[in-house]
């Protein structure tokens, strides 16, 4: 394992210290617990938005804490859901009396830990509701399983629900737009190389020099299948085919596009991927309203990327365009 770290046991702690040192105008940490909140939390007259998940996905989620997005983020250990006490403290810290919405990625651990936190907060009389993001089309959505995973599409939920909350909307209204995003967002990713959880010390899977994993999760979970590497245009075609047919996105639709690097992919390659995405959308007469290219939801040093499409209507467009000012996402 070759990493810029001091000690595998202290990566989360030291990352948080560096994050706070970099963004003192945006963020503060609650005492004695790993919860990052907006500097001015709780914001009067605003529904509080709390998200969280394992660390290793930076800038998710702490990078999205700030004006027009999240009020708090709970970073867990690397790739491990945070614990209920973190979430419970986050809920209390951001509740201004208007209630709190939890934005949860659909993983058993995240869902259960947030559920315990919600029970604790509700027992204290705090109004708490939740939405569960499950945008990854790679995994089967069957009632027999946990259902689809939540991946990069979650950032659109943060942005749009965050904008709605910033307007002073009620918890019910904020939840409604969050669910609208979830209903209209789809993603899929792939990996060229695995990633190594610092405490594990070795990669969670191996890929041959000429192999890639299609449908990879953001925790290095194996995807749908493995195959010989192809040109990026062909890879994009495959991912887009799965994504577009899933909703489905149709001729005349308007979408926001996110090309998300997994941590170890040059921006150059992401733009090359986006070139093909734009071409396919044009062919299908799907209009691109806005494109985001960069690292939004990473997977440590994994090289690979995911594509996310969000179908927009006038309401979602306005909320996407609303002001946001956070360390990792700015809309001016």
């Amino acid at each position: 394992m070759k990493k810029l770290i001091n000690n595998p046991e202290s990566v989360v702690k030291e990352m948080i210290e560096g994050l706070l040192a970099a963004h003192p105008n945006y963020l503060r940490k609650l005492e004695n617990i790993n919860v990052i909140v907006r500097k001015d939390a709780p914001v009067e007259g605003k529904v509080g938005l709390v998200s969280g998940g394992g660390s290793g996905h930076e800038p998710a989620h702490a990078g999205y804490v700030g004006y027009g997005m999240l009020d708090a983020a709970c970073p867990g250990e690397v790739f491990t859901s945070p614990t209920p006490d973190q979430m419970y403290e986050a809920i209390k810290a951001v509740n201004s009396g208007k209630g709190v919405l939890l934005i949860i990625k659909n993983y058993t651990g995240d869902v259960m830990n947030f559920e315990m936190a919600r029970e604790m907060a509700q027992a204290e009389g705090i109004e708490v509701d939740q939405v569960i993001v499950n945008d990854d089309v790679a995994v089967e959505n069957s009632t027999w399983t946990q259902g689809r995973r939540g991946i990069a599409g979650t950032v659109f939920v943060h942005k749009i629900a965050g904008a709605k909350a910033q307007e002073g909307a009620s918890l019910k209204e904020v939840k409604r737009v969050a669910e609208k995003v979830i209903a209209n967002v789809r993603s899929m990713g792939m990996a060229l190389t695995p990633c190594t959880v610092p405490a594990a010390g070795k990669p969670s899977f191996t890929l041959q020099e000429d192999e890639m994993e299609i449908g990879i999760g953001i925790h290095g979970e194996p995807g749908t299948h493995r195959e010989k590497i192809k040109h990026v245009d062909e890879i994009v075609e495959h991912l887009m085919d799965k994504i577009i047919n899933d909703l489905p996105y149709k001729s005349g639709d308007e979408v926001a596009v996110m090309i998300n690097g997994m941590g170890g992919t040059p921006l150059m390659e992401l733009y090359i991927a986006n070139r093909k995405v734009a071409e396919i959308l044009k062919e299908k007469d799907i209009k691109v309203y806005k494109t985001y290219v960069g690292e939004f939801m990473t997977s440590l040093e994994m090289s690979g990327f995911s594509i996310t499409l969000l179908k927009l209507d006038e309401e979602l467009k306005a909320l996407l365009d609303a002001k946001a000012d956070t360390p990792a996402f700015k809309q001016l």
Partner: protein
Amino acid sequence: MVITKEDVLKVIDKIVEVIRENKEYLTELDSAIGDADHGINMDRGFEAVKQKLATIPENSDIGTILKTVGMTLVSTVGGASGPLYGTAFMRAGQAVQGKTELTEEDVVKIFEAALQGIKDRGKAQAGDKTMIDSIEPAYKALKESLENNIALPEALKRAVNAAKEGMEYTKNISARKGRASYLGERSIGHIDPGATSSYLMIKALADVINLL
């Protein structure tokens, strides 16, 4: 046979030790069908349990001890196994609230409450390729053995064997709950990490009781 509070603490110490020894193995199992953190999560949790129990008041009863274990796991393990094992120990503690000694029946109650807690929290059933696949058969074997007047150490040995079989059976089935469910059929051929940690804990319990 009575199990004292000291015996319970010995069992917990043994669990801490066994989880530590198997930290890498459990993580390896989780890298095949999950996200390579189960051993790390469990070891972090039980290490915290050890620290916490060192500070617990002398006169704490067994219920309080088990609840403390559960609460510590909930706040330190994270992932899916944190709330599941945390709930299991908290429910087990409730089942023997106020007791400073346990009878055979209490041990059955502990298993029953823990299993129910895991089911309530995670909504999984036997056959979903989870920790339930080793705990449920162990509980059944224990209960049946004691009903047939088999002594506790032997009944626990049977429970361990049942847990082992259940754990091994998870290799043949595909996951319907937890992270491994994303793999569907591709999860076949791999033992479930949670079923393995459960087996190890049940074995730790049986090993300690057997030496009493």
